[in-house]
């Protein structure tokens, strides 16, 4: 069994676990306050106050909601398929969470304050214990891992999330839930095409599928070498303009598909209140409903992260070379912008009709994305 223990790189595994926990807490807090922000911003748009009682300006509202969700009675209706009914929220949440290991929160080799001391302490301690680790905490990478197929991994995991909704719709044994689940599966399969094809234009510019590498390529030119400004050729006049055109088209196709993919207004057909009560989660209450809710917000964060990293330069921004810790701030700021955009759209746009949704996805977005790939490829060949 010694070979088994030797084959595990304990410092690496521990470091990855610590990072996962930190990032998970970050994402959970972002999601909790996205819900709060949604309620407050919608209230402003609709000329009312919104939740402002729990804590200063209602800032403790997410925790109050969470406690309420935990202590509410957990109802399982009589006629549901018990096993699948219980599993569905988990199927929905787990793939959504698994994506966060490839989030590029910040630049590589960030100097960690107090890192010298930590490195010394841990190495001394493990030497005394006879483990002899050689860790280096003087600088950290703000991503858990990165691999050759990072973007495909994200698409694979978000694609699995649809089963949570479909299974919930089927297991609830209710016509509203079933219709919601059916709509959701059709919608997500349709818009996944537009989503993945729009990304191809960026991949043609970057030449890699590794998310951290794509973000790294966008640094330089004062931190503004973002893909929508022409990527690696940004700031080179006509050349950057030519590369910017397909990137901007791809950005908008991506944005529309991403909103549809996360079932948000104006594409929230799976949970259309006026037609389907609450759609696929009609029969869910208490913590199970909360899990669906969290999964939806984590998915929103994921597509925002992807939009930020692929099109808006990720952690890149002005003065990034001078103050590297601005990286995570820029990154989160851009993600917050997209989350705000979601809320803004929800307060502004009406819901599409189902046939309009399908027509738009198949007859406009898909051809537009295909055309954009051809355009991007042509321009890339001409420019480089």
């Amino acid at each position: 069994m010694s070979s088994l223990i030797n084959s595990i790189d304990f410092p690496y595994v521990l470091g990855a676990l610590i990072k996962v926990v930190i990032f998970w807490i970050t994402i959970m807090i972002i999601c909790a306050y996205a819900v709060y922000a949604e309620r407050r911003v919608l209230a402003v748009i609709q000329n009312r106050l919104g939740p402002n009682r729990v804590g200063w300006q209602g800032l403790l509202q997410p925790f109050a909601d969470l406690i309420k969700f935990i202590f509410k009675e957990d109802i399982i209706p009589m006629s549901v398929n018990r096993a699948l009914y219980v599993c569905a929220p988990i199927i929905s949440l787990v793939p959504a969470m698994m994506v966060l290991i490839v989030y590029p929160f910040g630049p590589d080799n960030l100097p960690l304050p107090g890192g010298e001391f930590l490195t010394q302490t841990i190495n001394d301690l493990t030497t005394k214990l006879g483990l002899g680790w050689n860790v280096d905490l003087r600088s950290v990478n703000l991503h858990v891992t990165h691999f050759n197929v990072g973007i495909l991994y994200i698409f694979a995991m978000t694609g699995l999330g649809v089963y949570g909704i479909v299974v919930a719709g089927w297991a609830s044994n209710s016509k509203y839930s079933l219709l919601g689940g059916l709509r959701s599966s059709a919608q997500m399969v349709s818009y996944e095409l537009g989503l993945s094809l729009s990304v191809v234009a960026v991949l043609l510019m970057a030449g890699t599928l590794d998310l951290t590498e794509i973000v790294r390529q966008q640094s330089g030119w004062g931190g503004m070498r973002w893909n929508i400004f022409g990527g690696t050729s940004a700031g080179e006049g006509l050349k950057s303009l030519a590369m910017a055109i397909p990137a901007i088209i791809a950005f908008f196709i991506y944005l529309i598909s991403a909103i549809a993919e996360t079932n948000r207004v104006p594409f929230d057909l799976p949970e259309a209140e006026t037609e389907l009560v609450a759609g696929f989660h009609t029969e869910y209450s208490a913590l199970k409903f909360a899990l669906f809710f969290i999964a939806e917000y984590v998915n929103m964060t994921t597509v925002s992260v992807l939009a930020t990293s692929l099109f808006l330069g990720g952690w890149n921004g002005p003065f990034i070379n001078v103050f590297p810790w601005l990286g995570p701030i820029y990154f989160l700021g851009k993600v917050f912008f997209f989350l705000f955009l979601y809320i803004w759209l929800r307060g502004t746009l009406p819901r599409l009709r189902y046939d309009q949704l399908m027509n738009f996805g198949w007859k406009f977005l898909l051809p537009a994305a295909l055309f954009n790939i051809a355009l991007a490829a042509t321009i890339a060949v001409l420019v480089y």
Partner: protein
Amino acid sequence: MEQFAQIQVSHLFFLAFASLAVVAAFNVILQRNPIYSAIGLIVVMCSLAGLFLTLSAEFIAAIQIIVYAGAIMVLFVFVIMLLNIREEDAKADRQKYLKFLAVPLFLALIGVVMAALKTIGNPAASSNVPGTVENVAEGMFTNYLLPFEATSVLILMAIVGSMFLARRESAEDTNEIETALNAANQPTAVEESSEEEVHA
């Protein structure tokens, strides 16, 4: 016990994914309820992706999940839900003689797999090239270009064939739907048709 002395984490991952795949595969064929079978098949696809990862074929693993678990199985589940197939009808009579074929066919399959294993050997040991996007693309567009293109033609034929079959049977229905949709796109017609539905 000597073999156990060489065990590594990747072997444990292999065991976990392989046993999960086998259990889920049995679930696919033993369940009477088609939706359980479909979910079993999804689990098989995901554990196969895990197995590809242990062979450091990360691109194939991602594609396995995206294409099979993410797209094809969604359509399976969609159809099962749309037709609302609750329990498989008892068709034991119709398949009375098939079960006598099952045993010899199963043995034949085992024989083929054993023969194949002897000739291939250990796939992980024979190739040290990681299955990255670049390597897969290079193989697909150089050495294996002809099979790749032939497969695309095959898939295209399947698409055209299914479109033809679907359209021929439901040509009249399609016309009806199209006229109804055209009528619905005119604002006055919408109210009329919805009123008709209410009266009906």
